[in-house]
Each structure stands twice: as structure tokens, then as C-alpha cells.
């Protein structure tokens, strides 16, 4: 079995002592933790994305690119990329570039997030999150696998004969996972033919076979 290491980058006071580290100290700790993953034997490194909250990691692909330059084999994943908040063209470019600089180690885990208020800050309607994610995934995979792409959708402006650059290293494209917190999300991942990531916190161990 493969085993990975994750930091979501929350920045909290120690609840026992009430003491806060500074952001600089917390970032130094996060980077020490991320850099330890490959030498300790982990197979995958996962960085989170949160906005406007007590998490101080908002652009995981930058942390992963930094790690890519200092490692040789560990896979580099986002846990998760909040696809509805982003232009899928830019996400396709970011992760194709991460795939190039890491020589084919990028993974994209996408999700809608668990903080509905973030949608308002991005000028978006949380009720449209599933539709935005579905459209984003469609565009992402087509940009990675097709050239001279002409495309129309509901949320993103039309594209006319575009070819994404750079092309990702992995074929047909970097692995995609949907982070599912509900049965509906897991069904959506299955319908789209996308891998699944789930949090163990949702596991009901009473249902063990």
C-alpha cells in the first residue's frame, strides 16, 4: 500500500497554553514537515487549500513546486484544489507546469470545499458549486488531452482553437481525484470516471464487514 503525508496548514494557538506561533514560525514548521516526507519514506505529499480562514496555506501548487525542486520521487497532490473558485484554464496550466518541473509527479485532487462563505467572497453562488466543479473538470481534462480545442460551457467563456501549454508529462494526464464528503459526491466521481479521496473522519467503523 502507498502511504502519504498531508499538511492543510492551519495556524492555531496551542489550546493548552494559549500560545500562538508567528506566521513565519508556522510556515517554517510546515516546510520542515513537507521536506521530511520523502526522506522518511512517504510516497505522496498533500498540501491543502483554504481561503480567508485560520488556514494559512491558500495556494498549494506553489508549496508543491517548491518541494518538487528538492525531491526526486514523491508524488505531489493538492488536498484539495477548490476548482469552482478558479479558472480551469489556469489550473490546467499550473498543474501541467507542476507535472513538467516534477517530471510527472503531479496529482490534482478537486473539491467544492467545506466553507460555504468563501463562495460569497469570490462572488459566486454556493448552490452552483457542483455544476461549476463538473464543468471545470470537463475543461481541465480536455485541455490536457486535446489540442486546438474549441469549447463552450455555462461558467467559463468559450474557447476557440486553443492548445494548452505546457503539455503535462503524464499520459493521458495527471491523476485526478474528487474529494467526497457525501454519497452524492462519490457517485459524481464514479460517473465522471474520476478517482476518489475520502476523509477517514467520515468512516463508520460499525459497518466493518
Amino acid at each position, binding site marked *: *500500500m*502507498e*502511504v*502519504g*503525508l*498531508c*499538511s*492543510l496548514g*492551519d495556524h*492555531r*494557538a*496551542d*489550546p*493548552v497554553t494559549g500560545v*500562538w506561533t508567528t506566521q513565519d514560525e508556522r510556515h517554517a*514548521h*510546515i516546510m*520542515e*514537515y513537507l521536506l*521530511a516526507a520523502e526522506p*522518511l*519514506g*512517504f*510516497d*505522496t505529499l*498533500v498540501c491543502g487549500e483554504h481561503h480567508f*480562514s*485560520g488556514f494559512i496555506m491558500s495556494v498549494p501548487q506553489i508549496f508543491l513546486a517548491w518541494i518538487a525542486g528538492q525531491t526526486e520521487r514523491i508524488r505531489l497532490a493538492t*488536498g484539495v484544489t477548490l476548482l469552482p473558485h478558479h479558472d480551469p484554464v489556469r489550473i490546467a496550466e499550473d498543474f501541467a507546469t507542476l507535472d513538467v518541473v516534477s517530471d510527472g509527479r503531479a496529482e490534482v*485532487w478537486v473539491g467544492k470545499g*467545506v*466553507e460555504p462563505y468563501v463562495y460569497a467572497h469570490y462572488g459566486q453562488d454556493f448552490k452552483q458549486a457542483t455544476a461549476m466543479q463538473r464543468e471545470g473538470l470537463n475543461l481541465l481534462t480536455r485541455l490536457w488531452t486535446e489540442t486546438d480545442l474549441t469549447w463552450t460551457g455555462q461558467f467559463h467563456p468559450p474557447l476557440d482553437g486553443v492548445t494548452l501549454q505546457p503539455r503535462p508529462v503524464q499520459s493521458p494526464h495527471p*491523476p485526478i*481525484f474528487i474529494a*467526497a464528503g457525501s*454519497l452524492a459526491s*462519490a*457517485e459524481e*466521481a*464514479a*460517473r465522471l*470516471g474520476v*478517482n*476518489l*479521496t*475520502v*476523509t*477517514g*473522519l*467520515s*468512516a*463508520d*467503523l*460499525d*459497518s*466493518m*464487514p
Partner: protein
Amino acid sequence: MRDRYLEVWAECGHAHKPHITVLAHVHCAPTSQEAIDHLRQYQPPFQSWVISKKTGVKPEEVELPPRITNFGSPECVIACGSPQQVHDKICQIVELMGADRYIYQGDYGGQPWPKVMGSLERFSDRVLRQLKTLDLAA
């Protein structure tokens, strides 16, 4: 969730194989009691804060389920304990979820940094290699 995912996957007739990754909290201490005594102070405040952000309920009013707070019990989904207990809990969760990959999350909740790194290094020394040789097809 795993069963429904695989059922819909099969109905859709995808040619490629699905992969399932599970991510969960871990704290690995020299003994079970040390792990429980530590995480009892850090997991509930963190989990209440996270749930508060999702639901809008005040952190102090969040009611956490036993599967998040009863560390070391069979029902608990958090791998908290001695190296052997952490290994066994991860195997239990991986089997339940039908996962091909497990992600260790141990850097959270304002825990003292030496505790975070101590757990990580202990896990690497005593648990990681055994998990990597786990034959999921068996």
C-alpha cells in the same frame, strides 16, 4: 460510500481502474496512554473549530461524535496510540474504505512542534514500512 462509488463506476462501464485514497488524523506515541493523553487536549478543540466553520455553530456548542473523541476505542477513526495500535487502526480503516493509499495527517491544531515531529518520526520508523508491504489484494 466505497460500495456506492464502485457500483456506479461499474454501471458506467469505465475501462480504467478506480483508485481510492483515504486521509485521516494520526498521532503515534511510545505508549497508548501517552498518545491518548496528548490528543485528548488537541483533537476536540481543533475538530470543534473545523465543524464550526462548516456549520456556523459556535465551537463551544459543537457536539463531537464518539468516533472522533474515544481515542483507542474500536469505533474511533483517528489512529491514536502506540505504533502497533496506529498500524492496526490504519489497516482497519483501509480495509473498510477499500483504499489503495493512506494519507497521514498529523500537523494540525496548534500541537507543540516536537510532538508533531516525534509522532511523524516514530510512525516512519515503526509503522510506515509495515504498511508499505501490506498486500491489499490479500
